[in-house]
């Protein structure tokens, strides 16, 4: 075990996997000398050279398309978008090409791509640099979706992603990069996709959440504990595939479900969890499931406004209480 930041965990795994397999390479904007805005490839060009830590032009469609082509032809690209918000710039290559290639070509293509980026609020980046977009990647079939909330998960899920023979969209969170935690030294440490993690056990209400909101949900659970309410906090860790079993089991136990995420609430993935779990555990539900997400406006720059748009710890607490005392 070593104590390191989430950003360092990402870097460590990229480095180890590039050493292990020379088909793995990194391409993206400013990944070379800068090492990315958050340092996740810092100095790697010194070890691997500028062919394998490859600065690209500011051409997101070409970046993703080149990853699709290179993967089709036997490489294992880790393509980086600087912010997930820029996925919209490359959206055709992501959703019409990368997502569909294998299926449409009758299963003959194999696309081992990791498309990495970071998202979310917390750094005053405003409307086009703060969105949480993972729901869209669940809606359009064809990619796996991983969302680590700790340094160990960043390491374990990223290694799984790199070794996966399918496109994986890897969602990091900008506010998590500086968080620290223990990460196994084992260069084979992997976290399987499709297994949720119960971040805190509880018996009264199930909170499902991801990324930055795991810590906020845990804060809320602390608050609730003071009032005698025992909240279970579940982090699905991968959204495709999604571990409904663990969530359903929990709801069968607690009878109450709150899903909270930083993604927009309207048609956010929380609604999907509510619909699916309602189907699987309807008779167990003691109260209406509650969905919290960002309000329906672009993310504003001002910190007070930004905070007003995304769910607060208090709102999570209140939602759980509402579920308890409906």
């Amino acid at each position: 075990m070593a104590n390191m930041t989430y950003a360092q965990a990402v870097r460590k795994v990229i480095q180890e996997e590039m050493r292990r397999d020379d088909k793995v390479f990194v391409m993206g904007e400013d990944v070379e000398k800068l090492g990315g805005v958050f340092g996740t490839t810092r100095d790697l060009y010194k070890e691997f050279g500028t062919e394998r830590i490859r600065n690209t032009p500011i051409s997101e469609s070409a970046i993703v398309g080149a990853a699709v082509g290179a993967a089709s032809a036997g490489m294992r690209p880790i393509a980086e978008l600087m912010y997930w918000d820029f996925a919209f710039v490359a959206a055709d290559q992501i959703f019409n090409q990368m997502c569909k290639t294998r299926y449409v070509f009758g299963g003959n293509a194999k696309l081992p791509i990791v498309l990495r980026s970071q998202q979310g609020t917390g750094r005053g980046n405003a409307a086009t640099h703060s969105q949480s977009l993972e729901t869209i990647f669940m809606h359009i079939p064809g990619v796996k979706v991983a969302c680590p909330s700790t340094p160990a998960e960043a390491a374990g899920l990223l290694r799984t992603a790199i070794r996966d023979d399918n496109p994986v969209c890897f969602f990091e969170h900008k506010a998590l990069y500086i968080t620290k935690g223990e990460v196994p030294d084992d260069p084979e440490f992997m976290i399987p996709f499709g297994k949720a993690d119960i971040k805190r056990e509880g018996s009264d209400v199930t909170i499902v959440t991801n990324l930055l909101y795991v810590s906020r949900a845990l804060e809320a659970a602390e608050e609730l504990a003071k009032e005698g309410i025992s909240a279970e906090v579940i982090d699905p860790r991968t959204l495709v595939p999604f571990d409904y079993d663990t969530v359903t089991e929990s709801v069968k136990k607690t009878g109450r479900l709150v899903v909270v995420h930083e993604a927009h609430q309207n048609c956010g993935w929380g609604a999907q969890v509510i619909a699916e779990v309602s189907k699987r555990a309807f008779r167990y539900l003691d109260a209406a499931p509650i969905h919290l997400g960002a309000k329906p406006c672009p993310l504003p720059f001002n910190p007070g406004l930004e905070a007003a748009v995304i769910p607060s710890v208090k709102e999570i607490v209140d939602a759980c209480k509402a579920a308890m005392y409906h």
Partner: protein
Amino acid sequence: MIDKKTGLWIYNKMNEIRDFEETAWTLFTENKLRGSVHLYTGEEAVAASVCAQLSDEDLIASTHRGHGHCIAKGAELDRALAELMGKATGYCKGRSGSMHIADFTKGNLGANAIVGGGIPIATGGALALKMQNKPNVAVAFFGDGASNQGTFHESINMAAVWKLPCIYVVENNQFGMTVPVWQSTSVEDISVRGAAYGIPGETVDGNDVVAVYEAFARAKERALKGEGPSIIECKTYRWRGHWTGDPEVYRTREEVEDWKQNKDPIKRFREYLIKHKLATKKELDEINEAAAEKMAKAVEFAMNSPEPDPAHVLDDVFYEG
């Protein structure tokens, strides 16, 4: 210069493509084929002359008008037609139809129903070839219309900066669907756009096999020497409507007839082969007959092939290693 073997190969492929396209047309009018089908009739010289210089290790990315590329890159007529008809025996198990057809095993990265969508993918293929030190090239085929998509610009700039072995072949058939080039494109010769990337751009008569062949040979040589990409614009014309239901309000019958009568690439190349004593009439007639026969068998194969089983509709979304 084109040698006899290559000449016959090209002549054969052009005929296979022509037969395939015209058969697809007939099947469509007979309601045996459905969906969006874009035919390559009249443009055969481009795919055939380019792919004559490619092996299975070379890569192509194709377009919505992709049957010609697919066949020239080595696909068999039977499984290709089966795919157009959505049959289980098709190259893509009936999932792709005309617009996404590919024989992946032959280095075809796929037809692409998004105009301009294949250009970055070919570029990525070239990147892989370069990183793997392979003595191969990638080719992006696309239309005049596609040359106004952002992907054109991003990809060629990237390939130029990285000196990728990628050749960008513009099939300028005078129209993007119904829009004439002058109405959509700021330059007459799309090849001049090479200047924007500091790379060679050349415009050739796309109905002249020899011209296309030689231009591509130059570009390929340059690519293999590590000098980077080129643009080749092939001026050509599609005989059929843009798609099988096109009312063709945007051009005259006379214009179409002129291209058919006076600029048919197959007829022209046939005359060239005979004139240069690369083939006899008899040899060429035999090729024509063989192609026709192959096509007839392909129709039989495709017609008699089973529909895919809906029970497997969710297979292959992910590779399960």
